[in-house]
């Protein structure tokens, strides 16, 4: 061992380790962008990852059907009951729709979200290995106009934010992550505001948390939470999720709620990135 420590071989290996540490430090200074080595490996492995992920998802789906047959049967029964309920609501909805169409004649409706600049639809290449908060990779990057801290959405609602952008691959941090905080407003009672922030316990069930809500709130289970848009990181009034349960937080000074996201982030196949919108803060990186 002593001979080894005095040998040239040891010095060369020490130099090599120092070189690797140098790469690591350089990666830290890139501020959200991948280093060119990572970018190259991403580009090289992208087609293989897409193909193998496709196969794996199909195998998982097949195994899932076999192992969870009882759950699916139970879920099927529940869904049948739910369909009956929804059919009743549909009848009410039709009458309301007719009424609404009448009202629309008198209201000038501005096209929703016309200020958004959207990316091309992005395919989900795969999920980050063993990430409890379901971060995933999309097949668009810097070359497609995506920068770090762009909101990622589907038509149903907000998914997360881009965090690590390569030339043609980006990593998306989902709203299940405790590292992402979003100012949220209740659509039914706009005075009720709070912060949506992931939580380890909630993320196990695919939910996120609404925290710092005033004790004098009018939140109800089923209320839709939308983005507040105050940070400049997310556009205003985009759906996030519905309130699942309400209670006091651990300090007892404010109210917290479990939020079921509008989008199931665990099984995504494609998303869209909002590259620009009215009120976007350019140095929004500090806000999340």
């Amino acid at each position, binding site marked *: 061992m002593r001979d080894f420590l005095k040998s040239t071989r040891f010095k060369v290996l020490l130099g090599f380790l120092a070189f*690797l*540490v140098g*790469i690591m430090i350089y990666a830290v200074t890139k501020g959200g962008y991948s280093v060119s*080595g*990572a970018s190259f490996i991403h580009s090289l492995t992208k087609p293989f990852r897409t193909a193998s992920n496709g196969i794996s*998802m199909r195998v998982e789906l097949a195994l899932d059907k076999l192992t969870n047959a009882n759950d699916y049967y139970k879920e099927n029964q529940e869904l049948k009951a739910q369909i009956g309920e929804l059919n009743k609501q549909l009848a009410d909805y039709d009458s309301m729709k007719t009424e609404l169409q009448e009202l629309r004649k008198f209201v000038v409706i501005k096209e929703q979200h016309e200020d958004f600049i959207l990316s091309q639809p992005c395919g989900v290449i795969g999920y980050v*290995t063993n990430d409890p908060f379901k971060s995933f990779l999309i097949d668009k990057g810097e070359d497609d106009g995506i920068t770090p801290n762009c909101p990622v959405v589907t038509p149903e609602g907000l998914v997360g934010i881009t965090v*690590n952008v390569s030339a043609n691959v980006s990593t998306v941090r989902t709203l299940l992550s405790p590292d992402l905080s979003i100012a949220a407003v209740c659509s039914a009672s706009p005075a009720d505001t709070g912060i949506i922030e992931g*939580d380890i316990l909630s993320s*196990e069930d695919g939910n996120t948390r609404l925290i710092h809500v005033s004790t004098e709130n009018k939140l109800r289970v089923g209320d839709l939470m939308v983005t507040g848009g105050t940070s400049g990181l997310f556009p205003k009034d985009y759906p996030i999720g519905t309130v699942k349960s309400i209670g006091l937080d651990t300090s007892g000074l404010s109210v917290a709620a479990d939020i079921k996201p509008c989008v199931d982030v665990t099984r995504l196949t494609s998303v869209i990135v909002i590259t620009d919108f009215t009120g976007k803060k350019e140095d929004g990186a500090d806000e999340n």
Partner: protein
Amino acid sequence: MRIKTPREKRLLYFKTTLRWVLYYAVIFICFLIMVSGTWLKPILLVPAAIAVAVNNNMYASAVTGAMCGFLIDISCDKLFGYNAVLLAFFCILTTLLFELYLRPRFANYMLITAVASYIQCRLDYKFYYQIWNYANVERIFVKYTLRVWVYTVAASLLVYLAVWLINKLLMPKEHLTIEEAIRIIEK
């Protein structure tokens, strides 16, 4: 050492090249398994790097360790270079241990893989979760870190078999002179 004929030399180069191509094919397959699907998966690149380090020289082991580390960084979305430093270090240590103290046996490989993999998982938990003081962070350790470690140790058997097979078929054998062979027999 016996003088090799040009044909033997060519065969040696061919076998060595093919061996390294197959090592990296195994590593690439491990990477693809790691990045596919949504379930918890073993960090297969740790046992792969160590299996290569057991029977090869230190420089090659260090480079392979670094390569596997970079691939882990990409698949697990960690700081680029973090796992490269860690695995390069583990591989150098593994080669050194097998050169000086240990025999290239399966039990020794499993022991080193279990320890290295645990350290890798533990440090990952420490730096990416525990240090940030998330509420209920210990659940990540129990539900993710420990399970991934167990999966990794279990899966290392398959990785070992693959690398063992490559070594058995393509690892160059020592050529001894008749005098050396007699000396060994006499001992």
